[in-house]
């Protein structure tokens, strides 16, 4: 019984070793071309020398094999300041900055009401005239890169503001400082509140950014 198990262990070990050797040999063969002689033996003969590319995260010939790093900065918050007459002021210097080498695009943008708050269609603040005080509703509008103004259209708690890349959502690589940043213009209307608030999170805007790939 013990001998049988020992034999089985031996066989499995041998098999594993064989597989390992085989796979190693395959991987070495893949790189063998670089070292193999590429000789020209006759006058006018030719040889093909491949140009090989390796992408790593550690510079030349080091580090892990990785694609280009996606590095995009987004605002940490979209502040709203509502005065006691209901006028809502927003930040004027918010932007998306692409620090990646490659071009990116904003794939989609969604907004979700925070706990205790609700979304409503964006429009003139007079559209909230019939709302009760402390009904905690916010209508939100957004424009990326000077493109189309997109806005909340219903009372759904979570809504797409942008569901596919549109004009203004495309950013060049960091090499072009003019094209690698896109302004975020935003506006809001908020129902009246009976007590003051300070930096209260009323909604979350989710930006999904992806490579601006071919096709």
């Amino acid at each position, binding site marked *: 019984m013990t001998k049988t198990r020992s034999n089985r262990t031996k066989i499995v070990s041998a098999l*594993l070793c064989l597989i390992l050797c085989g796979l190693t040999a395959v*991987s070495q063969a893949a790189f063998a071309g670089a070292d193999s002689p590429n000789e020209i033996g006759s006058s006018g003969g030719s040889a093909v020398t491949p140009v090989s590319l390796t992408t790593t*995260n550690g510079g030349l010939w080091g580090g892990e094999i*990785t694609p280009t790093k996606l590095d995009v900065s987004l605002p940490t*918050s979209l502040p709203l300041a*509502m005065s*006691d007459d209901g006028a809502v002021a927003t930040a004027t210097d918010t932007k998306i900055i692409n620090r990646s080498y490659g071009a990116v695009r904003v794939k989609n943008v969604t907004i979700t009401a*925070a706990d205790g708050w609700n979304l409503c269609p964006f429009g003139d603040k007079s559209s909230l005239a019939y709302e009760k005080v402390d009904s905690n509703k916010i209508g939100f509008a957004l424009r990326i890169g000077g493109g189309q103004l997109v806005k909340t259209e219903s009372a759904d708690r979570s809504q797409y503001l942008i569901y596919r890349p549109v004009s203004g959502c495309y950013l060049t690589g960091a090499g072009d400082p003019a094209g690698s940043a896109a302004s975020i213009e935003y506006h809001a209307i*908020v129902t009246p509140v009976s007590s003051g608030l300070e930096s*209260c999170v009323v909604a979350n805007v989710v930006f999904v950014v992806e490579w601006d790939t071919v096709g």
Partner: protein
Amino acid sequence: MKGVVKMKKKRLFIISAALLFAWILSAVPASAASSATATVPVTLTVVNDYRAVNVTVPAALPVYVRNGQVLTADSARITNNSKSGSVRVTAVEVRNGALKVGDFDSFCGDGKIALRINGCGTRGAGYLTLSEGAFPTVRPGRALDLSYDAKVSENTGELENVEACTVIFTISAE
């Protein structure tokens, strides 16, 4: 002796398996994220001390020239009508009107007018250089007296209620 061989075989098996597993892992291409998601909170601050400015400025700063003598109103003032929140004059600009704005301190030329408001004289059309204390903070319900002088060119002829120049007060909440 048999036990030692068995142990060695077992260790060999474990090492082989570990190596194979490590090789398989290293062969998988490193996948970096091709898209990223960022959640940005929308924060609301209700600023009760952000008040609408409610200020009354003079509808006109009348200037009378009678027999070469320039007379101005002594009742001009800027009134802060707000019940809470002080205001302050942060800029005064004088623009050309029917007459061109001249330098108050070295006044000369035809068809010109120069003003000095609360001690700050014009140097031509444009913003006055506001000296310290010339336009102090105006508290709620209070008024700031505007004391102004004018110089007008002699050859302007007879004029009546002509908008000689325009004065623009910029007022900010404090």
